[in-house]
């Protein structure tokens, strides 16, 4: 099987279907991760498989018994899966409190999904990153989390095993960073959808296996010539805790755009920050959170501005436009959006806002808007 086929095997069916089937003949425990900053390395260090949770492709039905339609689709969608028993295969479910809805989902899931009640573990990290109290408090939370994980795994976590896991994760990050370098230097060598598949696969399969696939893929890409390209360069930002609908990625390319870089959750936001190698590996994970590279609207660090970050990203890619993709009702993203818009406008970078909603995004008007945006940049 070639690299691409192997990756597609991982992402072509809903992850819960694949993992449920695999679970029948594998002893490995699976921990679902919901929320942005679950330290997956700790789960990995205990020989368990961390899996980032997303909505399923089907319509949300039971989830809407617990959430108003004006709550974000990731929370409604995960609740929906949980109510339908689709997540019952999880041995643990970590919910990182990164926003209102995800915070509220802890109790809602405990009520609505009895089979998950005993395996849910909420975790809270300080939201203000650069303060003397921040790191000690994160260390407290990480210690509590370690105790819980050890109970689930039935074994002790050693510093050595955690150190090894950090190395595996950092290797994965390095490989993805290289992949993105190639995409920037050879625009169009991979479609935006392919890149999303690649990153997504890594969020839902063992990192060691993903690393091997990435190495093979990078070797192939190194010898592949860049396609002839006169398309408009696009940088994508947004979808802060879910995937970008594949149709939107296709549309961008259909109308003459090429995605050359991104600041997406299923994209560079997930991997661009490496954990430092420190004597205390828990401290390294705390540092990774505190020193996250992509500014996050759910945390406060005025010296790390999201608008400027996107300006720099767009400038690094050469003349390009930025498409902001906001998941409808993502309050954290909505609050920062005006400042992203101001920053891009002041830097003379064209910007387009697209809102997406699970199952109800109407792609025809989205296509018209993206097409107009691309033509406007091209000067047609």
């Amino acid at each position, binding site marked *: 099987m070639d690299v691409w086929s192997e990756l597609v095997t991982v992402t072509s069916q809903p992850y819960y279907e694949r993992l449920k089937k695999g679970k029948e003949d594998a002893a490995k425990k699976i921990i679902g991760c919901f929320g942005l900053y679950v330290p997956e390395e700790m789960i990995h260090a205990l020989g368990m498989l961390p899996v980032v949770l997303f909505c399923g492709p089907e319509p949300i039905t039971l989830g809407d*018994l*617990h*959430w*108003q339609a*004006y*709550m974000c689709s990731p929370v409604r969608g995960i609740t929906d899966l949980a109510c339908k028993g689709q997540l019952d295969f999880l041995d643990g479910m970590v919910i990182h*409190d990164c*926003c*209102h*809805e995800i*915070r*509220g989902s*802890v*109790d*809602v899931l405990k*009520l*609505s999904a009895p089979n998950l009640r005993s395996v849910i573990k*909420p975790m*809270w990290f*300080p*939201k*203000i990153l650069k*303060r*003397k*109290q921040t790191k000690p*408090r994160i260390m*407290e939370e990480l210690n509590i989390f370690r105790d819980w994980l050890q109970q689930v795994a039935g074994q002790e976590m050693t510093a050595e095993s955690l150190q090894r896991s950090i190395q595996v994760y950092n290797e994965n990050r390095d490989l993805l960073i290289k992949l993105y370098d190639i995409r920037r230097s050879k625009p169009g060598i991979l479609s935006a959808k392919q890149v999303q598949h690649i990153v997504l696969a890594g969020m839902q399969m063992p990192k060691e296996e993903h690393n091997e696939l990435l190495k093979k893929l990078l070797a192939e890409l190194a010898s592949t010539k860049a396609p002839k390209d006169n398309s408009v360069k696009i940088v994508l930002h947004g979808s802060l805790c879910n995937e970008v609908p594949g149709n939107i990625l296709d549309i961008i390319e259909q109308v003459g755009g090429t995605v050359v870089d991104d600041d997406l959750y299923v994209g560079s936001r997930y991997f661009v920050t490496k954990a430092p190698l420190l004597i205390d590996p828990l401290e390294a994970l705390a540092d990774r959170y505190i020193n996250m590279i992509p500014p996050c*609207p*759910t945390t*406060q660090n*005025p010296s790390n501005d999201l608008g400027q970050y996107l300006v720099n990203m767009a400038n690094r890619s050469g003349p390009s436009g930025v498409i902001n993709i*906001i998941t*409808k*009702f*993502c*309050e*954290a993203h*909505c*609050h*920062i*959006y*005006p*400042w992203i*818009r*101001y920053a891009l406008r002041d830097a003379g970078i064209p910007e387009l806002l697209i809102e997406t909603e699970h199952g109800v995004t109407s792609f025809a008007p989205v296509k018209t808007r993206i097409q107009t945006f691309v033509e406007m940049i091209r000067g047609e």
Partner: protein
Amino acid sequence: MAAEQKRYNRVRCTDGISAMMDKFYKDILNAPSQGRKVCWCSGASPYEMLTAQNVANFQTENHSARVSSGQDHMYYIDKAEGEGWPPDTCSYTRINVGVALFIARGEMDKVHPKYRVAPPDFIFAGNTCPAMTQWGESLRRIFDVPMWELDCPFNYDDSDERYLENVKYIRSQLEDFVIFIEKNTGRSYNWDSLKDIVFRRMRQVQQLRAEIAEICKGKPAVMSQFDAMIAMGPAHMVRTDAVTEFYKKMLEEVKERVKNGVAALPGERYRLMWRGNFPWYAVGRMSRWMAANDICLATGAYGMGAGSPHANRLFPPDGFGTGDDPLTFVAWNVGTRGYTRTLEFKMREEVEEFIKGWDIDGVCLHSPRSCRLWSMQEYDMANLIETKYGIPATVIEADHTDSRYYTPSSVDLKLQALIEGIKARKE
């Protein structure tokens, strides 16, 4: 149901609130001319720490509610949305950002005189509601002034041990806040004033409100939730002796009503509880509709909270902390709120206490479209209320200050259905 011209019998003392709040905001406007620094505060804030240092301060949510109560919210919302704030951001924020954009750009004349405030010298933001720090961040950028943020942990673990750790975490940050205040006011912190506010004024107000709430549990209710909500502004922000006097008057009045048999709603048939903030632009309409239908909106944590065990814990138990340490008390006050507590805690202390204490027939859960804090978990709360306490509950979908999300006929219909449910249970 008959639409009679029946009205709530409002307590007279609330007539003075409007003048009190007018003066409060006029003082904020005039603060710079008196050499006082100005701080805009978003989120549940330790206002007392600013007041103690003679910093003019106000809660931006309160200011937005004031704008909406005056039916002027859409003018400022349009301004913010026109600049890119999406309608899915908190409507309190959009109103305040609209006001801020006018003021920061030297267009004070475009702000109605009633809503004018001086621009901030600095911003305070607390994240008991996560949106508040983002709101504060917008204000920081709009005015280009320093900001200080308070990080409030969510209490997933209701154990006392973990809870106390969280209070200590907040207290530790407040020590830094004192340094920030000193730096931005240019003088040493006034600890005596803080102690006076915390240990005397706040305690007095708290005790008065608790006594009032206890009296209001009687049947028929002598004071409604509408009055209690209107009276919230002074209780939460204005740390002056005038507020103590106001609540003393309120206490006298409710006592007198009990003595003279005066009810908030003569002939009350249904006693409802309200959970959540209120569609401030619709207070008058909703109170008239409820009165006309013999519905007494008797209580709710948002307003009558003073009588609940939750609010009693705004002051820590004897022996906690260092005894006379005001920062511990401030940290306790901020950290104990229901905003950072589990559903189980909220059900126990912000719902059950009121249902039982006020002998409630049904519960209205307000789900403001642009406010996640109050909206989340409400469907489950409604189910829990019905199964645990055997009374109906309804989720009213509207908004606190964006009237575009409020459909009177739909709200009326939901309330009618709630009343039918109560009737069916009573029969």
